[in-house]
């Protein structure tokens, strides 16, 4: 199910503004990769290029290649809609559909494109996905309640359940815990640990401990100054990045001297 991502010479633009410059890296399947770096260095911008969500913004475009198991996401004739079904995404702020019940939220992606699904299959899938997101026990008695009736942490796990219900190859998470309390954060971190068995996971985080706890590899981004594009400074095993980085800027950042 999970796949390798290879990014080659990627430049990312908002109209005339180049937000991210010349990023190349390889993300292994069934691993957790963390993106760290100061605010505004283009972490969100970059992660959104991995499922072509970047181009949803008017004027935004990408140069370069993103290969998922060798296939270029930006190749001619590739439908971004199909890319997004393979590469799921969890956002910074929990965003379950407020007009749908908890169960319908989980099924939202599955029902797209008029795919028919029988009632019993749907029930099974809802249970499996919510189990997978460690949410089943908390919501199994109120599946028909609106998604917005849950707490922030539960909503975020509901969004994860919604993302894994379509069985993507990769799951992208952009600061999934930054709007959550510490207990909910731990719940999500445990979940990431479990999800990594089946999925390739990429996570943006501002929290150094979180990066060191959950990730196998870490990529450090930064910008030279405002108005300049963000660049990838160092990409290595998480243990190396946090204990023995080869670039001074990385060391300063992870040790809290900068950022």
């Amino acid at each position: 199910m999970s796949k390798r991502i290879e990014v080659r010479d990627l430049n990312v633009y908002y109209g005339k503004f180049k937000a991210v410059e010349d990023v190349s890296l390889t993300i292994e399947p069934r691993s957790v990769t963390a993106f760290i770096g100061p605010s505004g260095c283009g972490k969100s911008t970059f992660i959104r290029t991995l499922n072509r969500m970047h181009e949803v913004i008017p004027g935004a475009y990408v140069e370069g290649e993103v290969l998922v198991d060798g296939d270029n996401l930006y190749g001619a004739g590739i439908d971004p809609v199909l890319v997004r079904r393979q590469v799921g995404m969890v956002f910074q702020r929990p965003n379950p559909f407020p007009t749908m019940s908890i169960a319908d939220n989980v099924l939202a992606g599955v029902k797209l494109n008029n795919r028919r699904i029988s009632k019993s299959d749907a029930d099974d899938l809802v249970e499996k996905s919510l189990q997978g997101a460690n949410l089943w026990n908390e919501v199994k008695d109120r599946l028909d309640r609106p998604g917005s009736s849950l707490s922030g942490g539960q909503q975020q796990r509901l969004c994860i359940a919604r993302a894994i219900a379509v069985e993507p190859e990769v799951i992208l998470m952009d600061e999934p815990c930054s709007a959550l309390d510490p207990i909910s954060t731990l719940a999500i971190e445990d979940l990431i640990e479990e999800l990594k068995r089946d999925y390739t996971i990429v996570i943006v985080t501002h929290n150094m401990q979180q990066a060191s706890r959950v990730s196998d590899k870490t990529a450090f981004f930064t910008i030279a100054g405002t108005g300049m594009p963000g660049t990838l400074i160092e990409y290595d095993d998480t243990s190396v990045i946090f204990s023995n980085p080869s670039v001074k800027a990385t060391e300063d950042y992870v040790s809290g001297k900068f950022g």
Partner: protein
Amino acid sequence: MTATATPPTAAESPRAYQRLGDRVFSKSALIAGSLILVILAAVAIFLVAQSLPALVADPNDFIGRPDSFWAYVWPLVFGTLWSASLALLMALPLAIGIALFISHFAPRRLAQALGYIIDLLAAVPSVVYGLWGIGVLAPAVQPLYTWLTENLGWIPLFAPPASGTGRTILTAAIVLGVMILPVMTAICREVFLQTPVLHEEAALALGATRWEMIRMAVLPFGRPGIVSGAMLGLGRALGETMAVAMVLSPAAVVSFAVLQSRNPSTIAANIALSFPESYGVNVNLLIATGLVLFVITLIVNSIARWVVNRRKDFSGAN
């Protein structure tokens, strides 16, 4: 009302200190709020008081000698609801479509231009719409009406014979539809634009196409707004006087056929047309029909409220 500068201590007066600005504001808001109720009550009292004589009068004193008050009002009530529903049925899907186009499909420039044009439509006086209905629309659709009765006449809606002038309840409903289109479009456009980007991106990230995103995030989120817009439009269609009075040549019939020359009139149009020649208890009769229209509008609005509140938990407002 709750503005407190500092928490009062025991020694201070128990009444919270209120700033002058807050007091003035809360008082004027209260007055403005009450004024609405007072005006509404005044209208209702006037309508009821002036209607009573008609309700107890001998129907033989009425123009046209109907069997009873209700026999007089019923065709008008029917005509009012029928023409307004037809107008809503035609205008609402169009309004939603235009609003979606403006909010989610059109390039920025075009969207702005379209927005202005729609708002301009709202500023055209209803007499002008009436003139347009008689002078342009009715002759233009008449051949179509004839064709419909000849080919689809077996559908009760299109039962023959077709009106020779084209001035039928369907024409009136089309004019009404055009009149209520701007306000409904404007409201739908506003609520569609307010759909949180968060939810639109959630749908897109799941692999929704643009249209699926709209069905998943935009329309459900905008539902209360759509209902409100529809009700505003319906309210205007129910009460519209000039355009209908000009287009329709009324008859006291109850018929669903929309292409014939005998059409039910509406309450408002009937009042406008009959008032100049009314005397004595007939004036009260017309006012009583006005009371009926008032009640119908109240009921329609309550239904809309109920529709909106029924799924309040799922509205996205929390």
